[in-house]
């Protein structure tokens, strides 16, 4: 098991490198950089006094180096103006827009992002599991049809529109603002039990909004998998031998259907994280979503780059956890070492 975990973690390293490189390419795509654009604007306005300062800043952040060198400096594999000082050394870069280190800008939003995503995944599991089992064991019952229908609607409704609709309805019916992640009075206060509760209460709506599509997909998959298993002969045999229905279900078919259930959530995580970004913008949650949007619009490249990388790493870790869970569940993977993906 330890060997499996180790190998699985090691395979993440090249993936991370490729992802960081892709991220860097993407944030470097817009013409120029934040500072050279400012310089151009100042020159156009005829002000050349502060240009020198900006030129200094450009050199300070190594924006005048060639592309590959900039990338390596950013990651921290190449000495920059201040020696090795990049992501690997724990320096997340500088936000030009806020004139603060990136860590200070998004530091407070990171835990919220992680909490929100974990809550969503938990929600998907907790809701889809019993419903999936119910739908499969009571196939073609009214409940099954009901859940299937709701599932289709949930699958088709894009999460940010759902967020918009929820916002509207909550405002309309209850006069309630469901945006934000805590009551305004707790903002800036130290963590306390009341604050925790307030956060939890505000987590409910975004979690449902982000998780609905994923839950619908998981219910469909679990139902299909379980139905496949329930028609196997061993189930008939067990039933013929007089095994009680509940025990029969838990003992064999459910265990078989559980594997794809866990594996699928790995595939779902990217879309969940995607959803959390845009839903955060719509519902105005203090996660990295709104910050990313701002950073992209103002071409605050290091901030945007770090957030993109953070979000990608979050999905990678999510997939890692789902793989490890799978390995715990299924000895074939743990011992065979075949499914390394």
């Amino acid at each position, binding site marked *: 098991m330890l060997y499996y975990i180790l190998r699985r973690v090691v395979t993440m390293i090249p993936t991370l490198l490729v992802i960081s490189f892709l991220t860097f390419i993407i944030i470097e795509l817009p013409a120029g950089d934040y500072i050279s654009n400012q310089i151009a604007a100042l020159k156009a306005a005829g002000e050349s006094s502060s240009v020198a300062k900006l030129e200094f800043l450009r050199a300070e952040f190594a924006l005048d180096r060639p592309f590959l060198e900039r990338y390596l400096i950013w990651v921290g594999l190449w000495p920059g103006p201040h020696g090795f000082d990049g992501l690997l050394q724990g320096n997340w870069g500088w936000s030009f827009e806020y004139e603060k280190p990136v860590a200070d800008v998004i530091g407070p939003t990171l835990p919220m992002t992680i909490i929100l995503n974990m809550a969503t995944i938990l929600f998907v599991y907790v809701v889809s599991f019993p419903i999936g089992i119910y739908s499969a064991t009571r196939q073609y019952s009214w409940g099954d049809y009901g859940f299937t229908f709701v599932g289709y609607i949930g699958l*088709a409704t894009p999460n940010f529109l759902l967020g918009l609709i929820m916002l509207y309805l909550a405002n309309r019916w209850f006069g309630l603002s469901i945006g934000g992640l805590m009551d305004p009075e707790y903002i800036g206060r130290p963590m306390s039990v009341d604050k925790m509760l307030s956060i939890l209460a505000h987590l409910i709506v975004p979690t449902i909004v982000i998780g609905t599509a994923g839950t619908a997909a998981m219910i469909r998959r679990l139902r299909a998998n379980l139905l496949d298993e329930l028609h196997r002969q061993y189930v008939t045999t067990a039933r013929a031998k007089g095994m009680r229905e509940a025990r029969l279900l838990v003992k064999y078919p459910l265990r078989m259907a559980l594997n794809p259930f866990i594996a699928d959530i790995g595939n779902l995580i990217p879309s969940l994280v995607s959803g959390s970004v845009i839903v955060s913008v719509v519902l105005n949650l203090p996660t990295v979503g709104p910050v990313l949007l701002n950073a992209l619009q103002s071409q605050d490249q290091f901030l945007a780059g770090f957030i993109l990388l953070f979000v990608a790493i979050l999905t990678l870790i999510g997939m890692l956890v789902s793989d490890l869970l799978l390995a715990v569940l299924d000895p074939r993977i743990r011992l065979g070492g075949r499914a390394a993906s």
Partner: protein
Amino acid sequence: MSVKDEAGAPVEHYVNPEPFDPAQAETLTAEQEAYYQASQWKIMWWKFRRHKVAVWSGVILLLFYLCVPFAELIAPYSANERSNDHLYAPPQQLRLFHEGSFVGPFVYGMTSSIDLETVKWVFEEDRTDVQPLRFFCKGPDYRFWGLVEGSFHLVCPAEGGTLFLLGTDRLGRDVFSGLVYGARLSLTVGLIGVTISIVLGLFFGGLAGFFGGVIDSLIQRLIEILRSLPELPLWMALSAALPVTWSPVWIYLGITVILGLLDWPGLARAVRSKLLALREEEYAKAATLMGARPSRVIRKHLLPGFTSHIIASATLSIPAMILGETALSYLNLGLRRPAVSWGVLLNEAQDISVVVVYPWLMAPVIPIIIVVLAFNFLGDGLRDAADPYK
């Protein structure tokens, strides 16, 4: 050696005079015969037809897609036409009966007054002002597809009247007309994006599946990495990189390319696994042995075997692209006025306090959900039909 009877004389050659029926072992009914002789595509069509929901979804989508070529004819106004007297006007209800008597489709006129307390326009239905709709009429001028001058509309408001079926927005632009025009961009974004994604998917999947080995594992790794990335933040970053100076047409093309660029891995994976299975078939081997080049083997012999699968999975990825465009435009990262798409229209609904007062700004949500749902059902039906022999 000839057959002899017991006495030793040769037996005469015996021929049964009755006509020979080759199907005498198992006679086929007319239906079965038709089934066995039908082409693959015909059987798929039969199978698809049985999936009622999918068929109806197809019909609904066709209706929606009619807006694409004929937007100018269907919309009563043009998408960016402002009506300065009707800012945030509520939807006008379509009616048939006026004071108990049938008049045909009409709307009541609106009287507007300003509420000085909240400083906003208040519109009220004027129950005496009957404005019957005109059909097949001359309305506001437009350039059909930006090329041909025209003024013919399917439906116009009464002379001097208004027809805001879904209300108007901040600048008095008709939301319904916006939806009709928006369909042009929103619905085609998916088609073009999927085309790009199919081309990329076929190329990479084909490379990986046909050649195998190092190429295969390299492409496999790439696919895995791309699939593990959250799409939307990347879409956002890429479309933020589109130059602001580009014209709407170029932005539109840029967005379709971006949407297609990140979508191909799923398709490539499907192509690869199909190719891996099919290239072991006898006929593929035979073609290779006869000296056909790989591209010919793939195109002529392997591709027809899984075209239906590609179409089905492509159908399923169109809604994701439509939603992608909507999300980007909603966030101000995608299309902008004067280009009109459903996402651009939804942009008006960004401020929730505005939406609460003028809920009809949310109208684009409805066609989006219908189209996405329809594409999902259609894709499901196609996927079931793609394997007609199962």
